[in-house]
């Protein structure tokens, strides 16, 4: 029998349902894996991460806090109820890692920031509630770029997360900890959040399936806000079916989130296995070519041949305003961030640095609590929203958003789904892009258009390619599939057909891969 940590969520849930394994055994196996590979101090009810300087270069550092005691207690409770004959949910007893930006009552939520170090939220996010109600066992909270701002997880105040495929490379970001936990077999499932690509890009760089659902279909209540008009939580998994199972649990209307849409999206699983025969797959002209690594381009071309062999028709489509997506995003997201992060003022929660007056206290607290990238974005956003600049920046960018949404609608007249590479590059080396903010922002060039349009988009493994800076390497490349609003089901169907034919095993390989995965 394969190690429990190598099984998918679907396989685990089948074995749990047949009574071949207990939830406690499953949870303990994953906690052991975390203790062996992550760099946490595995002691007591809540395991804390080591200080950044003490982390070894073979430790993944996916988790910021592991709620081992609560996870074991939840697993024991599930086992007792199953033994008593209670009917349990599809993923009951399956462990999950939660990004440290979703609030958890009684367990720390830091958003990767000194500002919230030690803060324990008084309530569960709606996503957290839905997972607990479904008896999914939360193992702990994962590392991230501070307040979800970044594409490499190097902006965390608590140290870098390493890519399980090559521990000297980044896992992507901002949900890098959630991606690394699943790729390192520390959890079969995790939740991340995606504002401009923060689920899809790390999924691509770590060989996983990662999903940004249609905007408004997953509640944002308890998701600490970065850019409210773009933020969405979604799943990471090692298979398309696992990702669909997890999203099906959390995708529902929430009257406590005013941006939650009342529409019920189609069932994600009913047509998962229908295949792509007869579907039109649109290749986006603007999301390829210059700026994309040759290995990424070649892998993407090969995916198109595979789709044709499976009976789909490839059509070339244009999103003429897509080149304006990234500049529009880097006005909209910082503007909304500067407004949302105004709440961190040293008064109601988190850090306070004392000073004689309230304004000096606010400014000193924010100077000490925020890292360089968060400060940079607050400054951009504050300037863009300041008197005399709003029309030229935020308003104009919001109009570009409308034009991009129109482009998508026109493209979906010609094609059922759209595809592109998820990221222009494979995983890059730790520290190689931190000096140049714009070079880092270019990671999002292919993911931002769907974010601005609100359309669902996912990344799934397309294959392996060589990193330009390291001949002989074989690192994951992601394929992005985008579907019309509320047609999340269609993108899962396309992704499932590709995955079955490709047969990609999401298990890290290579000389610097995390230990013990083979």
């Amino acid at each position, binding site marked *: 029998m394969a190690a429990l940590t190598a099984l998918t969520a679907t396989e685990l849930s089948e074995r749990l349902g047949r009574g071949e394994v207990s939830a406690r055994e499953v949870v303990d196996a994953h906690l052991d894996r975390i203790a062996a590979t992550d760099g946490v101090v595995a002691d007591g009810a809540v395991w804390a991460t080591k200080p950044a300087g003490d982390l070894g270069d073979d430790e993944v550092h996916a988790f910021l806090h592991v709620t081992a005691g609560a996870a074991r207690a939840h697993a024991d409770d599930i086992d007792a109820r199953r033994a008593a004959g209670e009917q349990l949910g599809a993923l009951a007893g399956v462990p999950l890692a939660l990004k440290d930006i979703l609030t958890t009552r009684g367990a720390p939520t830091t958003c990767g920031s000194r500002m919230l170090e030690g803060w*324990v939220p*008084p309530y569960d996010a709606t996503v957290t509630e839905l997972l607990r109600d479904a008896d999914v066992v939360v193992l702990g909270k994962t590392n991230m770029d501070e307040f979800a701002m970044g594409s490499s997880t190097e902006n965390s105040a608590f140290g870098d997360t390493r890519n399980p495929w090559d521990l000297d490379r980044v896992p992507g970001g901002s949900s890098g900890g959630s991606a690394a936990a699943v790729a390192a077999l520390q959890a079969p499932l995790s939740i991340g959040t995606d504002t401009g690509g923060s689920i899809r890009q790390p999924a691509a760089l770590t060989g996983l399936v990662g999903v940004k659902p249609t905007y408004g279909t997953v509640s944002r209540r308890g998701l600490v806000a970065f850019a409210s*008009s773009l933020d969405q939580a979604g799943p990471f998994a090692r298979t398309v079916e696992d990702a669909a199972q997890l999203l099906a649990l959390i995708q529902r209307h929430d009257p406590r989130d005013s941006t939650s849409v009342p529409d019920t999206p189609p069932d994600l699983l009913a047509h998962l296995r229908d295949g792509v025969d007869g579907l039109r797959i649109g290749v986006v002209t603007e999301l390829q070519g210059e700026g994309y690594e040759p290995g990424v381009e070649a892998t993407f071309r090969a995916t198109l041949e595979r789709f044709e062999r499976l009976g789909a028709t490839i059509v070339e489509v244009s999103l003429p305003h897509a080149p304006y997506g990234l500049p529009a995003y880097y006005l909209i997201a910082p503007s909304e961030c500067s407004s949302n992060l105004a709440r961190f003022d040293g008064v109601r929660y988190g850090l306070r640095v004392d*000073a004689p007056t309230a304004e000096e206290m606010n400014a000193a607290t924010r100077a000490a609590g925020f890292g360089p990238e968060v400060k*940079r974005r607050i400054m951009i956003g504050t300037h863009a929203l300041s008197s005399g600049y709003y029309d030229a920046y935020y308003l104009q960018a*919001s109009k570009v958003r409308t034009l991009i949404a129109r482009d998508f609608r026109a493209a979906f007249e010609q094609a059922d789904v759209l595809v592109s590479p998820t990221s222009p590059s494979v995983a890059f080396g730790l520290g190689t892009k931190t000096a140049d903010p714009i070079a880092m*922002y270019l990671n999002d060039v292919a993911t931002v258009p769907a974010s601005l349009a609100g359309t669902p988009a996912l990344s799934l493994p397309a294959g392996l390619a060589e990193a330009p800076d390291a001949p002989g390497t074989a690192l994951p490349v992601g394929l992005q599939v985008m579907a019309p609003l509320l047609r999340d089901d269609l993108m899962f169907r396309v992704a499932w057909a590709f995955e079955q034919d490709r047969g990609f095993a999401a298990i890290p390989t290579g000389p610097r891969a995390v230990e013990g995965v083979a």
Partner: protein
Amino acid sequence: MSLSPDEVRHVARLARLALTDEEVTDLAPQLSAILGYAEQVSEVAADDVTPTVHPLAPSDVTRPDEPRPSLSRDDVLAGAPQVEQDRFAVPRIVAEEG
């Protein structure tokens, strides 16, 4: 768009961020470069285009104005840096009269 160090200090005041001189020196060219890049959006003629803030829900959402349970005072105050008499405590806001 190019931001001078004084303009950076002005924005920092609006943002309630106490920046060091070194941070101001670093941020001035960085912010200028990012804004210069983002200004491409002005190349798009969009005078007659409605801005988008939510792709699916065009109107405000309301709920019935009925009382319902909320967090307890103890829960809300538990995370505060300083509490006095069941309230958030802050330094002086209004200057003393001379």
